[in-house]
């Protein structure tokens, strides 16, 4: 029927939800202009095979590639008020939300999951830039708190992938209040002695950078990711001069002492496994593409625990 049906690896299959199946089979690399076949792109985790440019990847696709055998249990995030301010710009906020939900097939801009990477259990949270620019509102705050609470409860490390244009303006002051709220989540991990690893992806900006994305025990970024508080355009307007090449990019931040590492997406999983296992005093692991665990992680039956929904194929 289409290229997906003769694709052999079932775990990669689900890399693309139905909505993501494109009309045409090619994408042009935004950096070097090479035409990339979608199958090749998926195998390469949306990294251009020609120039190494890292394109956006959805939270779900990232998890499928991150967890052993593509298997993870999604952690339910407590619902936030849908439109706390009755916000309306040129469109109503609920309409913008609905459009984003329809386009992405996701409920909101952050996904939280539990699973194993290299047979190492972790909690992971990933922000979806494709969902209203990954913006941080009540949902993202609730997701990070839920992730931290789950990590504390299960005594597991938290790996968080950030990507956001900043705060969700349509939630006004309540989006700003996610800075302290997510900081409390980081404190919970700290107090429980659990590793908190942040992977900063393109772009991570504004209040997101100025809260949970800069508070990791280990700070890793994807190559060339824009990471900043104030965006380059705002700064150029303020200081009225052109910013140097590479300003506020991952490599620049590494140079200025704001990051521990810059790691290509293709090597990220192995690196995370290595770091997590050292921080949690586990033996070295044989890294690589491991099959899924025998039984998916079962949610705990307590009423107080966040309800978990198994996804992916065992």
């Amino acid at each position, binding site marked *: 029927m289409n290229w997906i049906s003769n694709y052999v690896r079932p775990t990669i299959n689900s890399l693309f939800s139905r909505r993501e199946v494109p009309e045409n089979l090619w994408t042009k690399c935004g950096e070097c202009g090479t035409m990339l076949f979608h199958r090749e792109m998926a195998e390469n985790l949306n990294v251009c095979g020609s120039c190494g440019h890292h394109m956006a990847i959805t939270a779900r696709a990232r998890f499928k590639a991150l967890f052993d055998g593509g298997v993870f249990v999604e952690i339910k995030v407590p619902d936030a008020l849908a439109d706390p301010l009755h916000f309306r*710009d040129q469109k109503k906020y609920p309409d913008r939300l609905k459009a984003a939900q329809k386009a992405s097939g996701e409920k909101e801009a952050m996904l939280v999951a539990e699973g194993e990477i290299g047979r190492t259990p972790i909690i992971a949270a990933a922000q979806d830039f494709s969902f209203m620019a990954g913006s941080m509102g009540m949902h993202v705050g609730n997701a990070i708190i839920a992730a931290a609470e789950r990590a504390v409860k299960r005594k597991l490390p938290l790996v968080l992938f950030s990507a956001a244009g900043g705060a969700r303006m349509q939630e006004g002051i309540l989006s700003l209040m996610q800075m302290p709220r997510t900081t409390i989540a980081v404190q919970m991990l700290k107090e429980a002695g659990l590793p908190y690893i942040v992977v900063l992806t393109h772009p991570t900006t504004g209040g997101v950078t100025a809260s*949970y994305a800069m508070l990791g025990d280990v700070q890793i970024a994807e190559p060339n990711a824009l990471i900043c*508080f104030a965006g380059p355009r705002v700064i150029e307007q303020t200081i009225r001069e052109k910013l140097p090449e590479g300003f506020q990019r991952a490599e620049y931040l590494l140079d200025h002492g704001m990051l521990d590492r810059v790691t290509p997406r293709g090597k990220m999983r192995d690196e995370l496994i290595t770091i997590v296992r050292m921080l949690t005093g586990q033996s070295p692991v044989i890294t690589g593409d491991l099959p899924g665990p025998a039984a998916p992680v079962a949610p705990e039956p307590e009423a107080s625990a966040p309800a978990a929904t198994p996804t992916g194929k065992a």
Partner: protein
Amino acid sequence: MNYLEFERPLAEIEGKAEELRALARSNSEMDITKEVEALDRKAEALLKDLYKTLTPWRKCQVARHPDRPHCKDYIEALFTEFTPLAGDRNFADDHAVMGGLARFNDRPVMVIGHEKGHDTKTRIERNFGMARPEGYRKAIRLMDMAHRFGLPVITLIDTPGAYPGKGAEERGQAEAIARSTMKCLEIGVPLVSVIIGEGGSGGAVAFATGNRLAMLEHSVYSVISPEGCASILWKDSDKMREAAEALRLTAQDLLRLGVADQVIEEPLGGAQRDRKATIAAVGRAIESMLSGLVGKKPDALVRDRRQKFLTMGAKGIAA
């Protein structure tokens, strides 16, 4: 007297009254009492009318009024033995952020705030109240000290936001703000904040994440300036009135949202019309917030503060 755009009709009336008074002073035969009285009454009625229903955008303008009392004015009037403490011990002393030891109603405290400056020279010196990373790092140092010596922390918020400059980004503005917010949440001493003018985004959060937050009647606290929001969501920076409306950034809305704990009434016509009365009202609010917290155990203070933010957002603006 600096008049705001929307106060222009008022400026005309008050200007006329002033002219008449000046005329009478130079010409003793003139009797203008009646005319002046009439103008004064007219002015007061207009002032009342203007300030009875300030739109959110007008509130933003009042919050930014150059004649409002600033951090330095509050510190000088409400605190004794103020001993400024400078520097982040890493790079510089940020003059946009004032801080130091002081006594508030005789009790030793740590006071920290944004200072905007009051004329061209001091405004530039203070970088218009926009902190750089060093400002947050100085505040972190002072909060830490307050924690170790059991001193309550009082923060006075008045900033357009963090400074969007090259050096500020280079030196890790985002990280500095994040750590400052975290420090606010960590300290085992009371932390009370007052937004005295503008609570601009992350720059405000970094100091205002406390046990209690009071806001002056015409102060604002927002995730983004109305101008910024308008240019992003309306693609037209002239739509700041609409943006200010939509953002719900007034003290009254923030009280309804549970972000602010109390609103401090301003004199008729705003803080700039009676600085002394405004400062005194802020002093009373600080005292009442502090008295409810002093004596609580460090653990309880930290727990209460966390709880406040964890439950925030449960109630919306409501219809």
